[in-house]
């Protein structure tokens, strides 16, 4: 097993993208949140928004740096490990990747420098503009990468010539059938994930008693946002499911671990899928609800996995359980949001201990849901890289040996197991220090800066503003 370059390349891709996706899950939302805080501060001049923004900018800078370095890895994976895929799909997919770079990456990185380091160097409106551009960049980036991902799920607008894809209609390629659903579902997921992190940190600050004002502002803002986004997300998820039923029925059958084609199918709440005997064990089912939920029609016929030969079926257990984890977390989120409405109405939003503690516990769950959703959709696409057209086994670089990929996978594992925990601890420390204002921020951690001010007196060269 450890000598199969295909399996190892798949593990490697899962590893590098699994870690990477956690960062946009946070930075896409946080960039927008910072832009909102900067905007309110720009409009009202209230100091609490300034302090809150500075606090989140510090955390953002840590995650963004990690996002950049783990993101640079990704395009090279297509060449190093998936060169056949690149050769076959590049005519169609490569402009989408390239547009992500030229529209989004440059925008983000150029304005990030100004956002992080430029507050004293540019007027306030320019700093606010930089915050807006960073947020806009993260959304553009999501747009293009999810368009490419969606095309692999639901290819459209192409023709196949000599086994390679050629573009026929760029509008159909970019706006392929699953893209609108995937884009909205993913971006809302990123916003919800971030909002729960902000709510968790806010709850922590309120309970700690040192930064109650900042905590309350953040807590109230994010719970309003979640009140809109969590119900919206459930609706979007439902629409995405209908789309999957139409375009990727084998994936849907795997998600539901549904073996026999039938109408009036039950909804399987829990089961242990058995792929050898092609049945479910220990299943807990609700009659007819399956057809109703999946197709919005109790008499709808849902195709079962047995309609496909085994070599064309995705793995069943992984999407089945991953999907249920995602939905379960969504349900918990909805419960907390509904509770927050009641408590806000009663005027006890900031005083109810179980709500604050509950929100703190929610911090990691958005990420778990994002990962689970991603695993559902990507594993459900198997055994194809381009759904129904290009097999994963035909996508891998032919020159690689198992040893080659074992070495690289080990390298990525070691590197990520160093930087991700380190980054997490650094962010946890920033949260513990709280939104202290920058005047009291010169701790020894900042590395020799006070010395430096003494060592280099101002000179006439260069530009100096107080």
């Amino acid at each position: 097993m450890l000598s199969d370059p295909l399996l190892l390349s798949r593990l490697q891709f899962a590893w590098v993208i699994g870690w990477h996706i956690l960062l946009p899950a946070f930075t896409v939302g946080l960039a927008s949140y910072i832009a909102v805080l900067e905007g309110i501060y720009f409009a009202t001049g209230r100091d609490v928004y300034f302090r809150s923004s500075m606090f989140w900018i510090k955390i953002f800078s840590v995650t963004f740096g990690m996002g950049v370095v783990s993101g640079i890895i990704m395009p090279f994976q297509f060449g190093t490990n998936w060169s056949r895929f690149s050769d076959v799909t590049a005519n169609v997919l490569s402009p989408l990747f390239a547009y992500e770079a030229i529209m989004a990456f440059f925008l983000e990185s150029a304005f990030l420098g100004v956002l992080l380091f430029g507050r004293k160097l540019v007027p306030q409106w320019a700093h606010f503009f930089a915050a807006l551009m960073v947020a806009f960049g993260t959304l553009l980036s999501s747009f293009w990468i999810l368009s490419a991902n969606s095309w692999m799920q639901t290819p459209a607008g192409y023709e196949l010539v000599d086994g390679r894809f050629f573009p026929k209609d760029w509008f159909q390629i970019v706006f392929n059938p699953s893209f609108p659903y995937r884009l909205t579902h993913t971006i809302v997921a990123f916003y919800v994930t971030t909002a729960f992190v902000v709510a968790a940190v806010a709850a922590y600050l309120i309970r700690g008693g040192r930064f109650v004002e900042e905590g309350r502002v953040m807590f109230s803002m994010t719970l309003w946002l979640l009140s809109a986004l969590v119900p919206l997300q459930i609706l979007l998820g439902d629409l995405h499911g209908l789309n999957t039923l139409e375009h990727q029925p084998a994936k849907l059958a795997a998600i539901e671990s549904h073996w026999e084609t039938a109408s009036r199918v039950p909804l399987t709440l829990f089961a242990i899928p058995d792929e050898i005997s092609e049945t479910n064990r220990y299943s807990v089912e609700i009659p007819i609800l399956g057809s109703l939920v999946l197709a919005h029609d109790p008499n709808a016929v849902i195709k079962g996995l047995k309609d496909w030969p085994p070599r064309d079926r995705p793995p069943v257990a992984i999407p089945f359980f991953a999907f249920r984890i995602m939905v379960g977390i969504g349900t918990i989120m909805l419960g907390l949001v509904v509770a927050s409405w009641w408590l806000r109405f009663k005027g006890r939003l900031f005083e109810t201990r179980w709500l604050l503690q509950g929100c703190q516990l929610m911090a990691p769950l958005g990420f778990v849901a994002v990962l689970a959703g991603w695993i559902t959709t990507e594993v459900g696409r198997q055994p194809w890289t381009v759904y129904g057209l290009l097999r994963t086994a035909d996508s891998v670089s032919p020159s690689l040996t198992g040893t080659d990929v074992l070495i690289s996978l080990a390298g990525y594992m070691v590197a990520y197991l160093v930087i991700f925990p380190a980054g997490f601890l650094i962010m946890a420390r920033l949260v513990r220090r709280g939104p202290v204002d920058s005047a009291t921020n010169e701790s020894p951690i900042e590395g020799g800066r006070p010395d430096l001010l003494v060592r280099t007196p101002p000179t006439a060269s260069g530009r100096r503003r107080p």
Partner: protein
Amino acid sequence: MNSLVLDIVPIWTLILGVGVFFYVLLDGFDLGVGMLFGLAPDTPSRNLVMNSIAPIWDGNETWLVLGGLALLAAFPLAFAIIIPAVYFPILIMLLALIFRGVAFEFRYRDAEHKTFWDYGFVYGSAIATFAQGMVLGAFIQGFEVEGRVFAGGSFDFLTPFSVLTGIALVFGYGLLGAGWLVLKTEGELQAWARRHGRWCFIGVIAAIGIVSLWTPFVHEDIAQRWFSWPNLLFLSPVPIITALLTWVEWRSLNNDSEVAPFAGAIGLFVMSYIGIAISLWPNIVPYRYSLWQAASSESTQAFLLVGTLFLLPIILMYTGWSYWVFRGKVRADIGYH
């Protein structure tokens, strides 16, 4: 090669060429500064050295992504053959860039492990540079190709020539980095950068000399390109201008000009880059596939070109603006730390 009404392959060749050169230049000084960071005398000067690139490094690295993706988009066959052929140098480069990239934040925020992140920054920069140099060497050597795939082994890249180009690039980026620091610092630190720039310069000149003499022997096509008549005459400005730039660069590292060391280093890179391009033209997979044979479909190139021609000037404008914001000598008191 198709007979097109409008052949846009040359435009993409130019965009890719310029994009890769921008990467080499921008991340080049950036990685060079990273290596010199390890030689800086004390903590305050290290902080200043790092601050000189902190606001711009990730913008610079974005050109690497652009270079990779432009190759994939415009010349996908080259991407599909070359990248797996340099599997390990790319891996090493990416791993090194991870440690170097996170060091910017982590060394300030993780005081207990500051030394670890500092080493990550220095060795990350050096190893990434060396790996890029090996990619260059492997590229000049050429790859074993069957049909549309790389047919050699993952260690084919490793030869004395690729090791030499790796070392050459370490000195080259070091010279760019020293030039940048001369531009951005003052006083003692500037004198220190100048001193190290001179050492890098000696390494660069030795490397350019050896690589230039060795390259014609790597493949007969290259020797043919340079030494056949009348090419010898038409191409003679390349070594002559390089020699002139060498003289200018050495002088500027020894007098008190602030811009010239950086500009001269850029000039040397331009000339080396042109030299390589002349050696390999018109191939993108050396000695095997030309730019036209490896090009993506007309529609692909056109679709991406529309947006690129519109966006590239805008990118250059706001990138320029972000450099403008941080112009002048690097200061200790900017930032959010």
